[in-house]
């Protein structure tokens, strides 16, 4: 658990290149207006390029295009599967088996509630933007690997593969939904057995809807990952003085006489919530990580990619 993902080889693009994407808002905003290409897609593809895409073989024989092994034909093997060229070189009849390559189905939930719009001075982007970026980059990686990706609660909910699906995802991620609430909860999704789920949220809302969604997924045989995206200010609580804290939508507020005095209790509560999430995840066979908006998105992506594509789930 944690941020330490597998040590992936870096691609041709340097880390500095990724970092320097930041100030390019203007151009991307212009493109957003022109609608030429979802800006998220560009960014996500650039981010995804830093992670080398591989073929996700199942490490066992099955339907696929990559040679796996020759084995002697057994009774019951279809005649058409005999590799005659190999068999001609010996007395036995051989069957050429390919590695099983199955397309995975991944459902991604990106929390788009108002609380995800928060950004402190220490962070370059809002939590929502970071979540969208991670979702999109993961989608790019997965689609490139031939997997099917669907975005829960959007037009692109049906898991599909291909460029078109990526465009659809990017549009869905770039667009703000109407009537967003203060905190989000994962929408119901038609989970299919063997699929994977990724929930990107700050998980500041009540845990019950989340638990319900995860239970539903587990019942459908879907395992997944929780990425708690937090702003550094939410982690550190660097406030002082008389303050009235209110939620992003203004639904809840809290007045304090001296914010500094609350920091300890706040951090404790945050840790408790993370523990609860962790317990919940373990129970359902999920994994949890915390991702902060002030660190490079690549760390989160690498962890996610490892979590989703790794066969060891």
């Amino acid at each position: 658990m944690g941020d330490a993902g597998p040590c992936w080889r870096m691609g041709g693009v340097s880390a500095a290149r990724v970092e320097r994407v930041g100030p390019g808002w203007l151009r991307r905003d212009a493109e957003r207006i022109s609608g030429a290409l979802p800006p998220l897609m560009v960014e996500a593809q650039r981010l995804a390029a830093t992670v080398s895409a591989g073929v996700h073989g199942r490490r066992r024989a099955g339907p696929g295009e990559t040679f796996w092994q020759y084995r002697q034909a057994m009774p019951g093997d279809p005649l058409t599967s005999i590799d005659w060229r190999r068999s001609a070189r010996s007395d036995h009849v051989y069957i050429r088996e390919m590695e099983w390559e199955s397309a995975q189905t991944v459902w991604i939930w990106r929390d788009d509630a108002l609380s995800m719009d928060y950004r402190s001075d220490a962070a370059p982007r809002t939590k929502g933007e970071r979540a969208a970026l991670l979702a999109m980059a993961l989608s790019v990686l997965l689609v490139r690997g031939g997997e099917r990706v669907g975005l829960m609660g959007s037009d692109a909910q049906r898991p599909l593969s291909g460029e078109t699906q990526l465009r659809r995802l990017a549009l869905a991620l770039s667009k703000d939904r109407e009537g967003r609430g203060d905190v989000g909860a994962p929408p119901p999704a038609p989970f299919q057995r063997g699929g994977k789920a990724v929930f990107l949220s700050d998980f500041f809302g009540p845990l019950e809807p989340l638990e319900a969604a995860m239970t539903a997924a587990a019942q459908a045989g879907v395992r997944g990952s929780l990425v708690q995206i937090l702003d550094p200010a939410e982690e550190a609580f660097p406030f002082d003085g008389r303050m009235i804290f209110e939620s992003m939508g203004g639904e809840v507020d809290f007045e304090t006489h001296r914010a500094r005095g609350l920091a300890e209790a706040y951090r404790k509560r945050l840790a408790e919530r993370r523990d609860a999430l962790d317990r919940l995840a373990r129970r359902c066979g999920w994994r949890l990580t915390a991702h902060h908006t002030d660190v490079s998105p690549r760390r989160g992506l690498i962890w996610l990619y490892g979590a989703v594509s790794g066969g060891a789930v």
Partner: protein
Amino acid sequence: MLSFGGLAFLNPWLLVALAALPALWWLLRATPPSPKRFAFPGVRLLLGLDDQERMPEKTPWWLLLLRCMVAGLAILAFAEPLMNPRAQLSGSGPLLLLMDGGAASAPDWDARRARALETLAQAERADRPAAFVSMARLPAGDAPLALRPAADWRGEIEAALPAPWAPQRAETAALLAGAGFAETVWITDGLAHDDAATEALGAALAALGPLAVIGPDAPAPALRAPALEDGALTVDALRAEAGAPQTMTIAAFARTESGPSRRIGQADATFGVDDLSATAAFDLPLELRNQVERLEIVGADSAAAVSLADEGVRRRRAGLVSGGTSTEAQRLVSDLHYLRAALAERAEVVEGDVAEVLEARPDVLFLADVGRFTDAETEALLGFVDKGGLLVRFAGPRLARGADALNSPTGVVESPLLPVPLRAGGRAVGGAMAWSQPQRIRPFAEGTPFAGLEAPEDVSVSRQILAQLGPDLGERTWAALADGTPLVTAAERGAGRVVLFHVTANAEWSNLPLSGLFVNMVQRLLQFAGGGGATDRSALEGLSARPVALLDGFGRLHEAEAPGVPVSRLETAPGPDAGPGVYAAGETQIAFNLHGPDAALAPLVAPPGAATERLGGGDERPLAPWLLALAVLLLAADTVATLLLSGRLPMPKRRRGVAKAVGGAAALLLALALVPGEARAQAPSGALETVFAHVLTGDARADEIARAGLAGLSAVLTARTAIEPAEPVGLDLETDDLSFYPILYWPIVENQPTPSDVAIAKLNAFMRSGGMIVFDTRDRHLDIGGGAGASPNARALRRVASRLDLPPLEAVPSDHVLTRAFYLLEEFPGRFSGGRVWVEAAADPEAVAEEGAPFRNLNDGVSPVVVGSVDWAGAWAVDDRGAFMAPVTGAGGWRQREMAYRFGINLAMYALTGNYKSDQVHVPALLERLGQ
């Protein structure tokens, strides 16, 4: 009006509100700043938490203080404080504006006039009629005290000048009797002048109504008429108020043939604590003393502080009477010849018999060997001496004979016209029949007029008349011979003196008259002679004195065009009919001074019931606007401090504690005050060492890379070459001086601000005076030509360069010095490879390499500009640990970085040594020539 010294309040009752400040303090204390609203998603985690600490429910003390200061300042401001408050006119009705306007008013005349105009302005605002009277120049006419609108007097007051005499208070008092004024403002010179007149005036003014007396801090000083005392020119300085030691410097001025008078000496008059007068004595040679025209207290521009000198203190008149008859043929043995010579240029000489000479009223009468007088002559001479004349007699055969002729049984001759009794006959020494040698003169004793004169060795006396020994002979002896017999004796008689030289006035008895000593002795006697004759005006009785030059109020002498006055008028004090100055009566010049020899100054005692006020002390200045402005400023500071406190203004974390300790508002005000003055304390290190500089572009990353790049290049240069540059510096083009740096590295960023005209001028001067600017667009694309496809950085470069005075450029030719200044290079890579580098085009593009020579012979000039695009600084940049900060791109790898460094070295060499390498092409030719 409430007044404290130089501060007064127009609405003093408002100050009562200051008592409410403690209440305000208490009130503010109870009202803490309101909390700040803050959107924060984590609020749900906070719900239900208890506040562990409570923010103290009170405003910090310094904020309280700030607010109370605002309130206090506002209260003070509305109470309308005035600096240097002026007495406000109180009543209504006609105003009498009275000025002394005499000589003593002159030193601070401008302040008086300003004060008068101010009072007039007050009357004008109150729409009151006024009359203006300068007491020294009383108005004449039928209605001398005519009332006019206050504004009408303005011109008159502005044109008014002080008169050189005292104010005519008695006349003013008479004039004011029965006049109808409601209020009087009297701008006085602070002197009593004439007690009776001042008292009368005070009474007259008191009868008119409220009186305000505005006087100076200290009345003006004055000078008495000069006098001669013991041969020195002295003058008494006067002051009105004792109480402190004081020294006045008095300068003596002499007439000059043309133009302004010349300052020839100065003396100090030192007042003791209780002195009202002090004497200054001028130590001047007689010739200079005779030229003195006026004495003046330095710095007191007033007629009262000027004292004119006339003949009374100037040229002495000497009468010469000889007992014998002389002819032209015997001039050199004449009794009077040497006296005439000694007196020439120093005194006016009158010759004749005793009666004639006394008629001319000499100061000194020289009688050379006159033995006998008629009774009338004796009486006249005694009268002359008694009145202060100096009678100098010389011995001789006739005097000796005269003594004989008396046939005194005792052999002793006594006469009132002789200082000592003489023994009959005489004494001859050193003659053929005498035993003794001619006598020399003993050194002159202290206390005699001749003290300090040198008695030359070669002066000797061969014959003399001897004095009868007596008890007082010693003290009457002014000079003696070596054997103790007197040479010069003197005795006081009446106000004058009788002096006897016991030798002749010619060279018969001694060679004294031949020596310079004689001249000096005569001069001393002249100085010693008191006044008397020339200042005695009895002879001028009935004559008319015509003014030659008159003083104005400020004490300056002007040529006069005025009717004459009787001489007797000059006995009394000057006035409007006869101002102080120099008058001529017949041949005699008379100095008419404001203060006679007995004058004294006394301070004015204000009439009872009068409000007194000091003159000057700066303009009246209302303080309310300043106080209000300060209050507003503090209010602004309070706003900022409140915002800071409630956290609505971002405050850097690490300063939070400090700011609280110091007090936010104070720190802010201080910061506001200090920011403009904060100088970039960057010593021009380039003046002492070789330092590479880069332009601060405002892009932090580019600046850091540029700095690190130059640092890396400097390190490599130090390791490999003789160039050992110091730490590179970043320069702000707008403020920093460029002239110390050989190379200015300029990384171009997209949003490079176009330099101001000042900066452009600096850059042009930098390039013209041998500096080199290295432009680097850092993006691998350099399109000097300016196509539409130019990169943003290239466009920025073009924007900057278009304003610079750049020479024509060319791509670096293969034989450019840059390719061989240290290393032989073919290309100039940086972080990127490729890309062309542009430098100043060769002066002679047609030049062709000589046969066999590898390079063209292009010797002139170092390119003031190098333009490239491959991010050299990026390739050179190393961080503090020596690790490279940016990767080089392309296939070159470490070799490319090495080449980048080599280019940097060549660049530095090129910038510092110029075309030195280009000269090397001559080496083969030189060697060949040496070989022959």
